[in-house]
């Protein structure tokens, strides 16, 4: 069935291309063919959370970066990665600027929950989009996406729950069709979407959704420093087995004023009314946002904003006030400073909610220095505090990142990164207060190419102390030898290691070797 779909899609692309390309037009193009073998040696457990979970051993064949362009502007592209393996990722498109564009994709990946291959989930995704432009000011588009997933997964990968598994088998598809009209001042877009969810294990979960969206934006003729925008969105989710329904109507609008001397005023409003037929509830959400700012060319800028959110279901009502500050300074394209601070205070005005009143504050400071000869260095400090007085809980974390790229042209490139993440969680129960911290150190070296040989080597070390005491380490090495002008021999070696020092026996090790030959081919 799926094979049949792919063949149908391929036929559609070919039909479009052949229809658009008349004989007599010359063309040229090319791409790369890559063939190789991937060898995987792994042992341990908890494979689901390792980077290797979607890797497959076997013969891999890829057609990478294929392009063919005719003189009349029609271009055909294809990027078909690992056609012969289960982690294939295929993309193809055909287009002519101003006339049409058609794109297709197919991919799949899996997650394994044990090492004997008995418990895994696999997802296939196939999709396509077509757009045609019958007029320079109008575009019609439509497409589909289909995702199938099946398999068995564990609800939790902790030792205590290893016996709890659940099965999955569903098909999820969506179709969309719409149009866009544009003129020099602005544009308008309308789109209809349909979703279908078909659960093979439980028919009472089958459902569908229909949505329609209209958005428009324009500069005001005669005053193109004023931008007006707005839209409407309607969506209905329905269960097939009952009359259960979730219906939403949402409208939004905004005005942005580009004022003299780099000043800016931006106001937006959003209103959404959502009705759930299960408990016959109706919830309104209203969001008002206003931002004022000033920019001095590419040198500096500042933004100050306020956001008001009201959520009301006639029984409970919450109001939140948010403030935002952002500023940046750019000194001669060498030193870049950026700071932001945002707060949000939510209060329950009427009724009671599970979470109650809540305060959130977060900040971020960034400094970057760039030198054309030596590279760049960046330091960043980010923090967040979330307090809930009703639950008497508090989460407070800080993250510091240092990132450097040394690029002396005569030697190559060295990339270094360190991140430190620390925080604590408090609750009214002393039993579950705890601190957590993460460290990540990573380095990658790209030496300058020597004759026809290019290599790079990198390593990442990660240590986490949260509820677990986990350590991860990975090493990767790659060497490429270019020969006969258009051939490449590539050898890749990767090592992954994971240990959990609290959960006894929780470890994972993998060695992956990939040897491949790539040939560049030109056509025309």
């Amino acid at each position, binding site marked *: 069935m799926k094979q049949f779909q792919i063949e149908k899609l391929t036929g559609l692309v070919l039909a479009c291309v052949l229809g658009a390309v008349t004989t007599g037009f010359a063309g040229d193009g090319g791409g790369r063919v890559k063939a190789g073998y991937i060898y995987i040696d792994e042992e341990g457990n908890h494979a689901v959370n390792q980077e290797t979970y979607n890797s497959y051993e076997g013969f891999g064949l890829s057609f990478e970066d294929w392009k063919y362009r005719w003189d009349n502007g029609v271009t055909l592209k294809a990027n078909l990665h690992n056609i012969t393996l289960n982690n294939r990722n295929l993309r193809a498109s055909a287009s002519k600027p101003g006339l049409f564009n058609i794109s297709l994709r197919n991919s799949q990946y899996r997650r394994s929950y044990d090492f004997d291959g008995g418990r895994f989930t696999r997802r296939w995704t196939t999709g396509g989009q077509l757009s045609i432009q019958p007029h320079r000011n109008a575009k019609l588009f439509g497409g589909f996406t289909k995702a199938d997933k099946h398999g068995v997964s564990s609800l939790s990968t902790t030792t205590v729950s290893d016996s709890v598994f659940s099965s999955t088998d569903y098909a999820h598809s969506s179709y969309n069709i719409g149009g866009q009209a544009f003129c020099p001042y602005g544009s308008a877009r309308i789109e209809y979407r349909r979703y279908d969810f078909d659960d093979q294990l439980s028919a009472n979960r089958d459902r569908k959704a229909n949505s329609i969206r209209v958005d428009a934006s324009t500069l005001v003729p005669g005053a193109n420093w004023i931008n007006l925008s707005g839209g409407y969105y309607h969506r209905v989710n329905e269960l097939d087995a009952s009359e259960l329904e979730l219906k939403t109507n949402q409208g939004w609008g905004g005005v942005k004023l580009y004022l003299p001397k780099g000043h800016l005023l931006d106001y937006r409003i959003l209103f959404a009314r959502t009705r759930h037929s299960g408990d016959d509830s109706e919830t309104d959400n209203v969001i008002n946002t206003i931002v004022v700012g000033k920019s001095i060319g590419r040198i500096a800028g500042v933004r100050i904003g306020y956001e008001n959110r009201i959520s009301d279901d006639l029984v409970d009502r919450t109001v939140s006030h948010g403030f935002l500050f952002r500023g940046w300074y750019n000194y001669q394209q060498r030193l870049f400073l950026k700071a932001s601070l945002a707060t949000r205070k939510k209060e329950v005005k009427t009724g009671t909610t599970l979470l109650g009143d809540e305060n959130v504050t977060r900040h971020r400071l960034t400094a970057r220095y760039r030198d054309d000869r030596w590279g760049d260095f960046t330091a960043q400090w980010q923090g967040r505090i979330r307090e809930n007085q009703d639950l008497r809980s508090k989460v407070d974390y800080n993250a510091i990142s240092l990132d450097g790229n040394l690029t002396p042209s005569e030697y190559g490139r060295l990339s270094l990164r360190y*991140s430190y993440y620390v925080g604590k969680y408090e609750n009214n129960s002393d039993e579950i207060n705890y601190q957590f911290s993460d460290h990540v150190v990573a380095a990658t070296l790209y030496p300058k190419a020597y004759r026809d040989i290019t290599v790079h080597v990198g390593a990442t070390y990660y240590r986490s102390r949260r509820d677990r005491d986990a350590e991860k380490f990975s090493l990767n090495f790659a060497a490429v030898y270019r020969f006969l002008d258009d051939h490449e021999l590539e050898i890749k070696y990767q090592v992954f290691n994971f240990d959990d020092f609290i959960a006894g026996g929780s470890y994972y090790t993998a060695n992956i070797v990939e040897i491949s030959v790539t040939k560049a081919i030109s056509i025309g």
Partner: protein
Amino acid sequence: MEVSAWPTQRPLFPIWALGANILLLTGSVLAQEAAVDDETCLACHDDYELSVADSPHRLSSQTSQPVVQIGCISCHSGGEVHAEDPSEDNISNPARLIGQETGRACRKCHQPHRELDNYGFDAHADLELSCSECHRVHNYGREMLLDDRAEFCLRCHQSVQATFERRSNHPIGQGIMTCLSCHRFTRRADHNTAYGLSRVCQDCHPEQGGPFLHEHGAALAYEVGGSGCIECHNPHGSENDRLLRLPGNELCRSCHVEHVTRNHQNLWDEVWSRQPCQTCHIETHGSFVSELYLDPDLPAKLGGNCYDPGCHSLSGQGGK
């Protein structure tokens, strides 16, 4: 005539500038500076035609049957002066402009998506990032993006990078996803208030989507007391299973602190102590049969003890 490479310096309000801008927007693209053709440009910039040949910006002069008229001067103004006296300073380059002015250059043909879709705080617009900060016209990548890999975004969002190293994560590192898989700048109007579960999450996890007869309010973005999937999950990465923000029962207890003991302490303490909440409350995203989100197959799994008369029931009524 000297043409500045920094049109941002040009005042916007004077009437003559306003008129010029309107002419710029409404006039035929090629008619703006017809005196300079592509051949003149390509005589020096001989590799530039190839850099856009496969793209929507393919030059009309190099196409046998062009549908749209695109030339070098469609984006770069000041060609006449530049042809006489080649210099970086007398030809405009949209890549050097900042936010609003880049948009003005690109919007001759494109609608800036932050104007069509955006509302609320927008970090990228607020920082006056320009189209060229993310998009590239010459030697472009997918979607005309400078680089669509996660590494590109993480250059600025460095603090997020460490979270993807955690034990449970979204597969950014494996290249299966990119930041753009979830953070869709062109579809921001799909605000979460319009959905049960977050719209973006539903695309890949539709099995968790409702509507359910018994909703878990915290998981619903539109609910007065809920904030969507992120109430329980850290979408970037977590040391806990399933991207959960807190380990095991602590996550449930962080909200249901009055109702849940640390372990399942009751008459069945001996048998069912130290069980994860999810052993029984399996349908935490919502349920059609149990307002306590209990597993419909629990009687079969546990031998029926929990649902004996006088004890628990699927509906939660009459339970202990």
